[in-house]
């Protein structure tokens, strides 16, 4: 067991840190959460800067440890989040790299890396929820095209996306996991309507997408027809893998700020609150160590991240909510003021036990796939 880094890794960290120190002060002001075109431009501009500096590939090519360092340093320096490029860089991109043809990779991957094209995720449907395979959006063949009709929901960045990684049902008679295909749908196609959805935090974070006989070339299918569920599992394993590294670093920073605020406003004298903060310090230190453990394991096995991601997500999503609950205790009455720091974060933290598979679904995954308990009710 070793927690030290190699000379090359230390050098990568030092170079990255130096570069961040130089470029971050040159960034424009961050646009407001409701300004989607502004957010797209800002996020893509940042991706372009990373690309030009040689960091554009870091999510794909670099070793897991190098990625860990990248995410740790960018978060510590306060660099922009991956933002509108999230799906392209972390879901669709890796899936295309693993499952796409040479032609598909050449067509779609470079624009993602350069920040030229934005992807969104058309997986969830209004009536399916966590039962992802219960999707009803249908696609049938017409010559060289699929014709797609149905609707998707919780589609982040749909308003400004160029492409959508879309799950469609291509065989309605097959068992529900077997009749699905994975398509790259151009968001400019005729028949697509995007309706933004306002979240409980007040901002329009995602959208509902209606598809009315949208034509998608058959050549845009990734993997075989009706083999989309397997491709989807590849996508989801990326989603649940190392996606939270930067967030754990951010939570540890927030925790330190909370302690300072508590001392400033006198709440630090409350031993119950102080001990809660101490316990959260233990929690996030441990989550960081678990991240390092998982990254080392991924590096040793040299493959796609495994179901261990579910263990991490279960614990992290609850810890994040606890963190902002304690923040509310530190703030007191100000915790009801949306202008105060941490109040919006508290609201948005509520999505963590729901998004990307609810905690209940994740517990089923852990129980059945890791512990070997029988499937059932």
């Amino acid at each position, binding site marked *: *067991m*070793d*927690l*030290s*880094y*190699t000379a090359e*890794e230390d050098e990568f960290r030092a170079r990255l840190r130096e570069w961040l120190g130089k470029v971050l002060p040159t960034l424009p002001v961050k646009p407001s959460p409701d300004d989607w075109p502004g957010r797209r431009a800002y996020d893509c501009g940042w991706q372009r800067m990373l690309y030009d500096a040689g960091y554009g590939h870091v999510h794909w090519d670099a070793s897991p*440890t190098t990625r*860990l360092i990248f995410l740790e340093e960018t978060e510590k320096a306060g660099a922009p989040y991956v933002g509108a490029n999230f799906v392209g860089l972390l879901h669709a991109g890796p899936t295309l790299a693993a499952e796409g043809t040479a032609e598909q990779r050449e067509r779609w991957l470079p624009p993602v890396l350069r920040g030229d094209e934005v992807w969104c995720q058309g997986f969830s449907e209004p009536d399916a929820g966590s039962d992802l395979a219960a999707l009803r959006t249908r696609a049938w063949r017409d010559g060289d095209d699929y014709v797609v009709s149905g609707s998707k929901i919780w589609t982040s960045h749909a308003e400004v996306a160029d492409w959508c990684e879309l799950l469609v049902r291509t065989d309605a008679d097959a068992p529900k996991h077997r009749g699905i295909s994975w398509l790259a749908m151009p968001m400019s196609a005729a028949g697509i309507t995007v309706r933004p959805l306002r979240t409980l935090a007040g901002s329009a974070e995602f959208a509902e997408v209606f598809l009315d006989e949208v034509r998608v070339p058959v050549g845009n299918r990734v993997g075989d027809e009706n083999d989309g569920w397997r491709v989807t599992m590849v996508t989801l394993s990326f989603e649940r893998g190392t996606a939270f590294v930067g967030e754990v670093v951010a939570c540890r920073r927030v*925790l*330190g*700020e*909370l*302690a*300072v605020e508590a*001392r400033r406003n006198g709440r630090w004298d409350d031993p119950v609150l*102080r*001990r809660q*903060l*101490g*316990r959260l*310090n*233990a*929690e996030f*230190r*441990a*989550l960081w*160590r*678990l991240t*390092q*453990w998982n*990254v*080392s*394991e991924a*590096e*040793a096995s040299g493959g796609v991240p495994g179901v*261990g991601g579910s*263990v991490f997500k*279960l*614990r992290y999503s609850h810890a994040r909510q606890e963190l902002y609950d304690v923040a509310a205790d530190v703030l007191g009455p100000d915790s009801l003021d949306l202008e105060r720091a941490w109040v919006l974060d508290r609201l948005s933290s509520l999505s963590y036990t729901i998004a990307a598979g609810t905690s*209940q679904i*994740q*517990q*089923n995954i*852990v*129980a*059945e796939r*890791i*512990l*070997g*308990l*029988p*499937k*059932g*009710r």
Partner: protein
Amino acid sequence: MRFQLTDDQRALRDAVRGVVGRSSSAGVWGLVAQFPAPLKGAPRLDRGFWRGLGELGVFSLRLAEVDGGAGLGLPEAVLVFEELGWALVPGPLVATHLAAGVVPGAATGETVVAAADGSLVEWLDEADVVLPGAEGAVALRSVDPLTPLHRVPAPARTDPVAVLLTAAEQLGTAARVCGLAVQHARTREQFGQPIGAFQAVKHLCAQSLVRVEVARAAVYAAAVTGDVVDIAAARLLADEAAVRGALDCLQVHGGMGFTWESEVHLHLKRAWVRARRGGGNTESEELLAADLLARAA
């Protein structure tokens, strides 16, 4: 960074596992059988078994080779104590380990060493040596039938290494009770199917594993860094994993779990005893709170 067990560390763990009975059905019950009437009087320590632990290197492993040890470090000690915790091995394991090289005979298991830790001393009557002494010790009727306890009036300071090794024992217990719960959930049938098919039971087991994995990362990392704040964090998560895990294991076992015949209660009671070592959770939480301000300054 390669935060995974090395081949040598795996081999060490497996060797200890073989000896303390983790892989054999004797396991816990072999040890418990040495105390046939746990409610009547204090248990005796099996000196032969204690010397066996000494031969295995449990007490001497961190001593230099010239002093008769194996010259290993905290990570190896943590792996060994995790196994001891898993197998519910009784005795003043941590105190004797820490006395190796200081008290003659401790390293080999010839001498049994007890120590005051906070306000409690474990195995006082069976010990040959007590550190730093136990003036005014009063016997308690211990909740754990396999850990006799005395209370001392003046609380003693705790060595962070003792806290870390205790956390490792708790981790072993957490892994053991998770395994027992899963095993029972897989085999016990009710309403025509294994109870593990029911989500309510499934989720108890899943949360138990999540606590084990989080605690494991914290304990192993603390062993690598040896940092007191890391150790405090490790102990909080390991205590939680052991105590909550044992309680959930008991719940999964249902009525059977509430009987003396089921071993679940022994794991729970040991976890409770260990959770009082090193000043308890309050001390660790305060240390971690202070660390937040120290880092922000």
